């Protein structure tokens, strides 16, 4: 690949850490590290982050600590050609942030309407589980937004990616990773 193409594509393409910006400087971190170091979000609002963390954790235990919100937030801030999100192969039309805002908004609107004005992140674990089960089956009352089962698929995929799709995830699961070309950061 020529230098021009490299610039046109992704910085650090040969590395699998993500570039997080802090105070004008860039750091290559895994989403888990970015969360642990409290790296500021670039695209998602605090409420969207809360919803995404709660949703991710409900879908796949460990997703919040694995940095699902930092992963998605960082991915939404880069050009779509560079994105690693499953949204890319599910034919979601860029900019992907439009889908995420609509999806997270739909979750919270439905949660507020159906749960005594409480956002999804403020539901109990059992209530979250019930909500997601209804969303998966497209049965949430008054749902307005992208189809619930599709939101379930996309968000579940992101959570699976950060928990099970990384080298650390394989290691925690006890499954050999066997990379030809190893992602240089074990995220």
């Amino acid at each position, binding site marked *: 690949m020529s230098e021009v193409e490299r610039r*046109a594509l992704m910085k650090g393409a*040969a590395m*699998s850490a993500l570039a997080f910006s802090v105070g004008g400087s860039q750091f290559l971190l895994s989403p888990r590290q970015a969360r642990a170091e409290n790296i500021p979000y670039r695209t998602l609002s605090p409420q969207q982050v809360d919803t995404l963390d709660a949703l991710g954790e409900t879908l796949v235990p460990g997703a919040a600590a694995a940095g699902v919100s930092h992963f998605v937030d960082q991915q939404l801030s880069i050009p*779509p050609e560079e*994105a690693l999100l499953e949204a890319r192969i*599910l034919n979601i039309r860029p900019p992907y942030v439009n889908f995420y805002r609509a999806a997270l908004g739909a979750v919270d609107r439905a949660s507020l309407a159906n749960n005594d004005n409480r956002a999804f992140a403020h539901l109990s674990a059992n209530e979250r589980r019930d909500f997601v*089960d209804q969303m998966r089956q497209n049965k949430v009352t008054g749902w307005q937004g992208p189809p619930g089962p599709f939101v379930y698929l996309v968000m579940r995929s992101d959570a699976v990616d950060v928990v099970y799709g*990384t080298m650390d995830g394989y290691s925690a699961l006890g499954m050999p990773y066997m990379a030809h070309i190893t992602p240089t950061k074990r995220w």
Partner: protein
Amino acid sequence: MATLEKVDAVIVGAGASGSLFASVLSKAGKKVVLLEAGPDWQLSDLISSDLWGRRVKPAVIPFLLEGKNPYGYAYQAGWGVGGAALHYFANFPRYLPNDFKVKSEHNRGLDWPIAYADLAPYYDKVAQEIGVSGDAKAEEIWRPRGQPYPMPPMKTFRNGEVWLKGLESVGIRMVPQPVGMNSVEFKGRPACIYDGWCHVGCPIGALANPVVTYLADARKAGAEVRALSTVTRVLTNEAGDKVTGVEYYDARKEKQLQPAGVVILAAWSAQNPRLMMISATDKHPKGLANSSGLLGKYMMAHYASGTWALFDEDIESHMGTIGGQFMSYDRYDKTSRKGAFGSTYILAGSALKTSDLGGFANARLDLFGQPLADFMQRAKRGITRLTAFGEEMPNIDNRIELAESKDEFGMPLARIVHSFDQDAVALWNANFEEGLTIAKATGAKEFWSARGNQPTIHLFGGTIMGSGAADSVTDSYGQTHEIPNLWVAGPGLFPTEGASNPTYTIFAVSQRGAEQLVSKWGTVAG
């Protein structure tokens, strides 16, 4: 807009068929330029990761996906050199003789203007050229005799072998899966190490993707690849009887005009007809080479009926290749399934990863939370999948057509309108049923169907070949009926799709077409 120096041939798309055409033409001494919309990937870019592997697929697509079963474009498509064959599974089954005469034999679908015998020598040639591992003799229970493959079959693993008893119980014979992978070192490319990362691009060259085969040969013979170059129009002369070159935007988004003696469209089944429609002129008001009105028509996709099985024993679910270990044509007769029509192609055993669309986290899409975590633990060593691919008949309503909205270059997007008919749905269901019968006979602890929306896999049609301009867009070589120096390559030429993986047949058809183009160059080139 700069006008560049004229070349003998410009090829739009550096995937499977474009790379092969480039190799044959440049070895014949032609000056060839390939224009590829995506990047010029190197093997070192192919990181072993499902997340990072998504980069070799398109993010921004110029299509609107419509119909009852919208086509799953991005997962199937390529972006960059190698095209979709940079991330393909490299299963190399052939089409069988019954695939070429569906209309004649069943009064359904369409006939190809050629027969299996016309293509057979090219299957053999491709195998010797890029390397195929398998047992040709074992396959000859279903097809005419041909040359042996240059490499022995790949290793098998328990995740494939556990299916054999169940398949035998319903009378399905399995043979080693032929693959475009190296079971032993081949032409300086190393043997496979069975780590299952084929689908994100094999960076050691053990898998025969175009970057290490035809495109490498083409470059060695002088072909030039211009990456990040998006073709927006095919240009014709005033009379409309010759193409003169193409207009494209280069990596700096600057418009260029590339004159050429021959234009070969090898940008996949959807993009080729879109470009030909966009290039309409007063001489070709419905799009280039479209007096038949069939440009963009008869789009087809495969679908799969997957069956999952979970065993108590460690079956090394992570080992092998992504493609398959065993295959069968025992349900390939078009009328194998009562109440349905079309061939079924069966594959058993493949390496499984955790995430992405094919990962085993999706084997139970209904699970989330702790039940999913528990399932992942149970499945990590004991899960395996059986896959039955089904054939869709050509339907004129499944089509590409231009849309009102435009892409970043101001060119119209296109719609891909796709719906499965009742035969395809019935065959899909019948294959699920037999999958469960087979799984039960394996003695698996748990088994279930991978049901969801009916998937769309591979893509065919849109520029079908035929006997004349009244019933098709090109002849059997890919030469358009109406513009002699405009050629089309790839699965868009296929009038029917069979049920088996298409890339080996794409290579064989392209090899035949490219050799024909060289042989009649003097009468074709503008």
